[in-house]
């Protein structure tokens, strides 16, 4: 299988690569449109700040490439947020794959970022096959997607938010599957089997 990880200036992919290696896949890290279009599957990681991440994508023309992909695509963490219409983080226009706006957690009686292990419920995704309702996965984020028609798993931190989603071939997860012990490995493995 040819698995491509989108290369741009947003976050380290070392742990993700190790996790995929453990599942028997050797991903390529690339920003080459041909490589991305010809991959069997694409993972879109992301950490850090949204506006600089979007600038980095646009500089390479990757914004147009990603929205045109037809194979199974998995956005992770900031990657998921960048797939949306726009985010409150520095009022950034994003890729627009998911027609939803990303909001900021209000640090009013809660700590922000939402950091740590939280349980996911209302599981309804092929990525969650074998993952039990109420499983804990690892989150680190200050912005969130409200629950919407594309939500395939929910989590709650002050407010309910989207933990996983799907729209057509575009899948996404707010948590870090590569850091989420057994449930996280199951999610990655299910993605590889799509």
């Amino acid at each position, binding site marked *: 299988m040819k698995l491509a990880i989108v290369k741009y200036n947003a976050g380290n992919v070392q*742990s993700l690569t*190790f996790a995929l*290696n453990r599942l028997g896949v050797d991903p390529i890290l690339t920003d080459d449109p041909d490589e991305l279009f010809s991959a069997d599957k694409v993972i879109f990681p992301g950490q*850090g700040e949204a506006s600089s991440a979007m600038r980095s994508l646009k500089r390479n023309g990757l914004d147009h490439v990603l929205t045109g992909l037809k194979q199974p695509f998995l956005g992770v963490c900031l990657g998921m947020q960048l797939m949306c219409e726009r985010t409150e983080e520095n009022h950034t226009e994003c890729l627009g794959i998911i027609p939803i706006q990303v909001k900021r957690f209000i640090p009013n009686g809660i700590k922000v970022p939402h950091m740590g*292990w939280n349980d996911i419920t209302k599981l309804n995704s092929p990525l969650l096959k074998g993952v039990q309702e109420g499983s804990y996965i690892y989150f680190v984020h200050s912005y969130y997607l409200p629950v919407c028609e594309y939500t395939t798993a929910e989590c*709650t931190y002050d407010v309910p938010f989207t933990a996983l989603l799907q729209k057509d071939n575009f899948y996404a997860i707010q948590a870090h599957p590569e850091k989420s012990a057994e449930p996280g490995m199951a999610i990655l493995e299910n993605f590889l089997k799509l």
Partner: protein
Amino acid sequence: MLTKRIIPCLDVKDGRTVKGVNFLELRDAGDPVELAERYATEGADELVFLDISATLEGRKTLVEMVKAVAAAVHIPFTVGGGISAVSDVRVMLDAGADKVAINSAAVKNPGLVNEISAEFGSQCLVVAIDTKYVDGTDLVHTHGGTKPTKLETVSWSREVCERGAGEILLTSMDHDGTKNGFALDITTRVSKAVSIPVIASGGGGNAVHFAEILHNGIADAALAASIFHYKEVEIADLKTSLLQNNIPVRI
């Protein structure tokens, strides 16, 4: 519900885990990668590695260790010790660390907190604060707790939060190594003063101590070292006990 985190800490010197009492008298506590795997299996929520190697050789060993840990475990881990520039952070993140912890370097150059969080995001930056009660005031100490500063602990915590720290690792030097319980007072005051998570460290000796510090409104996570290394407290037993005390933890 967001759970409280239990975090074993591994002090690393020249590629081996060591542990001292009140920052002194180091004892060998094993291979860090093996310990990391053991902790991940036993239910640790995160790991922290603090490198206390003084030499360049020791630092190189650390990068190799970070790669080995990232390949072996699938829970988040933080690396600290000797990180004093954006370039040091990049090396650790590229090797597979999820977060870095800075301590003395932040005191020396507070702008480093802004620089790192702007470059890599707040989520990967832990500011470690060693605090000690001196003549009626909680003062920040640096260089492994050997040098007192003029910074008051709560105001310094607030400052690093405003500058972009993602988390605070607060170690009470008065409590560290004593196993008599965490520092409830200063941890509570720091936690109330900042909007970011606080990891309490120093003094955890049994499940009751962890329950006290993780109770509502105090710490978001609790860290300990030797009690886990020497199996005086088993992580699984600790978590069961916390659940019985209505403290949410991941089992």
